[in-house]
Structures are given as C-alpha cells and as structure tokens.
C-alpha cells in the first residue's frame, strides 16, 4: 500500500530528475557487450567538460596509473568500461545533487563522505570474497542511498520532518521515514533507479540494502553493501542523516562468511583507501 502512495507522490513531481543525456547514452551503450572502447569514447566526447573531468579523475591517485592518461579512449582502455561508466554516472548524479546544497538539516557533504566510504568498504569486502568486478561493487556502495538525495531535493518538507524526528528521538532515519512517510529512501531510490535505467544489480542494491534477503538470488551483492553501510556507520565515516548504528542482518553476515578478525583488518584498509578516494569528492565539485 505504501508503494502505491509513493508512486502517486513521485508521479506528481514534474521535475523529477533525469540522468544527463550522455550518462543515459553510456548506460545504454554499455548494456551491449559488443560495444567497443571507441564507441564509448565517442559518446563521452560529446561533452568536453565531462571529458576533462574524467581525465582528471583517471589521473588521480584513486586509480594511481603510473603514466599520464591523455585521451578518453586511452582512459577507457586503461580503466576499463565499468570504471568509465561509473564515473559518468557518478558525475551525472553529483551534478544533480551537489555537495553544497540542501537546507542544512541534511548535510550533503557528510552524506557523500559516507557514500564514498561505503563504496570503498564494499569494494574491500568484495575483494576479500574473491570477486573480480570490484569497480561495479564500488558504485553500488557509492550510490546505495540515492533515495535520500531524492527525498532531500523533492520532498523537502517531509524530509526535514524526518531528520528532525531522527535527531529528537535518536532513531534510525529509515524508521523515521516509515513512521512519517509510510515509505523509506530505499524504495524511493529503487523507483528512480528503474526510471534511469541503472544496471539491474545497482538497482537491487539501492532498493534492498536494508533488507538483503528480499533481493533473492542477488542477496550476496546486496549483503556486501548492507554490511559496508553498517561498518562505515560504526566507525563514523561521514554521516547519512542519522547517528544510530543499525543491526547487521545475521543472514548476510553468515552468507559473506566474515568474522571479527577479518572486519578488524578491513577497518585499517578502509582508512588507507579512503584517502585516495577523496579525490572523487573533489571531482564532484
């Protein structure tokens, strides 16, 4: 029932954001496995500002390539399709929701810091699990809370109430959302991700990161981000709107076969990786 109410509400917003044309094109092109670096490069080259931003980030310490990358095609063949697609996507979304913005109740800078930490942590967990496409996992973590940005930008009054309730009662933002709005940021994010045509895995992560079992066969991917989210809150990396640390979903913990020692080691790795990843936030502005 809550879902219908939410759909109704979202449909009433005329100016619900769309992805930039370039980002949209890249999403589509990269859906075809036959697409080549040349095609992706050609599409990005339509926006020279984006090209220079991508080259800047490609040459940043986050990727740490030992030589200078000078062309967008070069960036693609070195960083790979997934990285480039994610950069375009991230750039597009950061443009929509700049770090400096909102009404002060919801601190977007802290929000992006948390998202970045979550991306880095997800990547490290995935690496430990032996997964190979770590770039994908990074973007899952980075964009998992996208729904909060939608709420902040388009349900301003409602969301301010949510943040106020969170601060007063010291509860989880999700509980406050459900209490006041009848739906949560995960559902909002899921609907928008569908609309934007984001990759299926990313959409599932956005929609189910508070409840991994609902992702069914994709539970493992969602569990990674769920766990990263909780860990980042636990060590206070950024702030996603509330200060309470949610419980770890036990099934996810078991599924990923983690233990306290692994988590301890992860903590020290996170600190190091996050230093490099900060370049991405600079890039956002």
């Amino acid at each position, binding site marked *: 029932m809550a879902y219908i109410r939410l759909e109704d509400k979202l449909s009433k917003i005329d100016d619900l954001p769309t992805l930039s*044309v370039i980002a*949209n*094109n890249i999403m*589509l*092109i*990269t*859906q*075809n*496995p*036959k*697409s*080549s*670096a*040349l095609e992706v490069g050609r*599409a990005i080259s*339509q926006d020279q500002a984006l090209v220079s931003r991508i080259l800047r980030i490609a040459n940043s310490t986050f990727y*740490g*390539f*030992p*030589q200078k990358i000078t062309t967008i095609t*070069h960036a*693609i*063949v*070195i960083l*790979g*399709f997934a990285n480039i697609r994610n950069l375009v996507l991230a750039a597009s979304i950061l443009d929509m929701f700049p770090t400096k913005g909102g009404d002060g109740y919801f601190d977007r800078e802290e929000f992006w810091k948390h998202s970045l930490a979550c991306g880095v942590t997800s990547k490290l967990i995935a690496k430990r699990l*032996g997964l*190979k496409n770590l770039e994908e996992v990074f973007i899952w973590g980075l964009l998992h809370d996208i729904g909060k940005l939608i709420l902040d930008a388009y349900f301003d009054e409602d969301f301010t109430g949510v943040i106020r309730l969170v601060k007063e009662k010291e509860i989880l933002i999700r509980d406050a959302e459900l209490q006041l709005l009848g739906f949560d940021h995960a559902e909002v994010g899921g609907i928008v991700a569908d609309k934007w*045509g984001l990759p299926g895995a990313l959409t599932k992560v956005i929609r189910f990161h508070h409840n991994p079992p609902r992702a069914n066969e994709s539970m493992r991917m969602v569990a990674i981000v769920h766990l990263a989210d909780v860990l980042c809150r636990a060590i206070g990396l950024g702030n996603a709107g509330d200060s309470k640390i949610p419980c770890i979903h036990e099934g996810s913990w078991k599924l990923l076969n983690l233990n306290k020692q692994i988590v301890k080691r992860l903590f020290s790795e996170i600190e190091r990786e996050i230093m490099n990843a900060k370049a991405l936030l600079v890039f956002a502005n």
Partner: protein
Amino acid sequence: MRVAPIEEDTIFLRKTVSGLREEVDQLTMLQDICTQIISNYDFDQIINMFLDIVNEVISYNSCILYLYHEGLNSYRVVGFRGVSEKDLKGYELDDEIINWVLKEGRWTHVSFLERPNPKDNDFASILPLQGAKRNLGFLLTFSDTERNVFTQANTKHLSFIASQTGIALENQGLYSKLNHSKEYIKNILESINNGIITIDMADRITQINKNATAMLGLPSADIIGFNYRDTLAKDLVKMIDKVKKRALKDGFAFETVFDYFPAKDLRIPLGINSSVLLDDKSNRIGIIIVFRNMLALKELERLRQLDELKSEFVSNVSHELRSPLSVIKSYVEAMLDQVDPSDYQTQRKFLTVVNNETDRLTALVSDLLDISRIESGKFEIELSPVALSDIVQIAVRDLEDRTDKHQVVVDIPPLLPDLSADKDKMVQVFLNLLDNAIKFSPGGGKISIKAGVKGKMVKCDISDQGIGIATRDIRRIFEKFYRVDTSDVYEISGTGLGLSIIKHIVKSHGGKISVRSKLGKGSTFAMLLPFDNNQGDQNGRDENDLGRR
C-alpha cells in the same frame, strides 16, 4: 553537438539484445573450452590451449607469455607466438605499469612499450593471469588497431579465460609438486636397506620397495593395489596378520624375528615390525610393515666373534710358542755357561728338558698345520681296517710314560669289529683325548676307555675323574680356538685346537663325538666310529651280545 537519446532507437536495442544473446553463447562455449584447460595437468598443453583460445577471441598478431618464477624472483618468458626468439629481449616492460595492471587484475591496453619493429597501428595489451591468491604472470599481445578488439565482451571473455588458466596453472603446479614429493619419498623408500610394504585399511598393498621384493623373493613388484593375502606366501601373510593385529591394537608392533623360506632350501631370518599410518587428521589409513634381513646381522655377529677368537688365538699361540722356547733357551744357555762339560748327568737332564719342550713345540706346530689344512679343505684321510685295541694300545703306552697319578682302565671286547679308519689320525684322536683327560684331572684318578657296538658303529667312551666342564662351555669346546677358562684355578696349557681337530677327524670318518660332564666329577667323551664295511655284517652284533661273550 548533442546526440538524440538512443533509447528510442529500436535498431540499437535489437543490436543490444542480439549482442547479449551472442555473449551468452560465447560464454557457454568458453566455459566448455576452459573446462578442458582446467582438467589438464600438462604445463605445455595448458599454455598452448590458453594462447589458442586468446587468439580466437582477439586474433593477435603476436604474443608473449610471462610467468613469475619464484627462484629468479622475476617474470620470465614461457611461451610466445609471432615473435622471433632473438627479438624477445627487445621488449622492455615498464615494471610500474605491469604492477599496476596486475594489481587492477584487468585486461588493459598499454601504449608505452619499447619493442623491436614497433608498428603504429597495433594495439598492445596486457592480460593478467591470477591464481587464487597471487599473480602468476601476464600475457602481452599485439593486434591490429582496426580490429577494434577492446570491447566489453572481449574484456569479460579474456578475464574469464585468464582466471581459468590461472587456476589450471596453479593446479598443475600443485600436481607437479605432489608428483615431485611422491618421487622424493619413493627415492627415500628405495634407498632404505630394509624392506618396506604399506597396506591400506582394506589390506591392499599401497607401496612396496625393491628391497622388500628382493628380501621376500617376490617375482615382481607389480602387486600394488592387490590384497596382500592373495599375493604373498602363506607364512608371510601369517606374520603380517600378526604384526598388523598388534599395530592396530597398540599403534605399533615391536620387531619379531621369523624364518622365511623364499625358495626351497633357502632360509632367511627376517625381523618384522609395523606401525599404523595416520593421515593429518589422525585417521588410520593403513599399516607400514618393515622387514629386516637378520642374516646379514648374524653374519656380522659371527665375524665379530671370529675376529675375537682369532686375536685370542694369536695371543694363546704366542704364549704357547714362547714358553717352550724360553725354557729351551735358558737350559741351553745354562749348559753352555754353567754346566761343567764333564758333568754328563746334568747335561743329560737338561737335554731331556730341551727335548720335551721341542716335542711340545712340534705338537703345537703340527696342530696349527692340521687346522690350516682343515680350513683350506686339504685335510685327507686314508681308510683301512684297524682294530680299535691297537689304536688304544699305542695311545695308552704313550700316556703311561707321562703320568704316575692316573690309573688307566681299558675295557675293549675282544671280538670288536675292525674300524674303517686312518690309523695315524685315529691315534692322534686318542692321544689327544687321553692327554686332555690327564691335563684336566690334575689330582689324578681313574681314566677309563670302554668300547662296545652300537648299531653299525663302535661306541667308545673315554672317561676321567677330573675337574669337569661347566654346562655353558660344553656346547663350545669343539669350536676352534675355544678354551675353557680355568686360569683362576689351574694352570693348564693348550692352544684350543685339539678338540676341534678331533671332531674334524671323527666327522671325516663318518663318526660322531660328544661329551657329558659334571663339574668336579669328571668328563666322558663318547665317540661313535664306523665299522669296516667288509666285516661289518659278520660282526654286526650289539653291545649286549659282546658283553656276554
């Protein structure tokens, strides 16, 4: 210029769907091919299959495969195509870039590369090969730029192929390591002097070394995998059953020795012991049975004793030789310096001593000669019919000259059949035995010689009432060089050769000699000597008959 949204372009969508379908088909096929790579344990075959399949995906013009070598601590070329061997050194790889690519673990284009005959239009790329936990190496490929090989699908395919090949190479490494350690253990097993057989819990032979095959006289070592009960000799199976039972009960079985007959008339004393074999989780996985050839050990022991006896003999003989010589020398010196030349009586007395001592020496030397003849197999006897009474008479006459303290009693039935004997040698036997009887009864007493017929032999006992022989010595007194140690009680000289020679003489006549004795009561040497065949039948009566006549 801004492009119109492609999402409306149905052709684009159709292309995407068909691309995705093709992708699924290709991945399915790749999976099948990679299964072949993974199930291969031959290094060269894995490398060749890998290079083939990468070529299928991106049709490179040339490629070089580098694998990390732990010993060299660097990457080295293990395969190449489309490159001449002499050009290989011309490829200068930037370590920083290589390390970056390996860290990212992704198929990556590289443009900064020094190489021979560089082309403008080729696309150089590095495909990392990763194992479960470490980088194994990378494949450097060159293909035409126009071919547009850098696609998402190719990236995915190559990453899949590389990961499967990485696993295959690691498996191959483990496999060859396993083989290596198997060979190593086998070498150890083969170089052990003992025979070793291992069996599993189902009694199947799992390992057998060459020594075991040789020791157990097995026709072939090709019995691995068979139940030991079906393949080994019955008496061996019985012994293995025994030590196996013990090992299963206690974890091990101490060595027991048993006689094994690998062939008729071939007896090998074998030591056998066993232990339970455990795996890393302490589960019983089998039994190891170790065989030791005790023959070698016994031979060694025998040689050691022989060596001891010989040293003892040399010291005995030296002593025996020296004492008569020094007596002779001192008497001769005295005669030369101190005895008045006209004092014939003293001279005669001294010369008698010298004469006796010379006899002693002669006897000793002749004993030594006999022993050396016996040992070299040159000791021969000439048989002829001889009456025992004649032999005894000669011996006793000699004896009577030498003792006053002993009373000799001879009891030989008059109709005793002749012996078939070498008279001189037989006299030597009796002389020796009687001499011993006198020597070992220093207090005097009766020495009796009693003869009779027993079956087809003449039985002759020589008894004294002397000091007797201890039980522990009885078994050994016929051994060469063996002397009963009486030094603390009596000074009795001898070489330890007499009885050995006697036994040999009696035996070469087809007879037997044995001894009964009691310490302090005296000894009886009993001989059985064969009749002369020609008269054996007519005189073949037993002792009782003779006794009655």
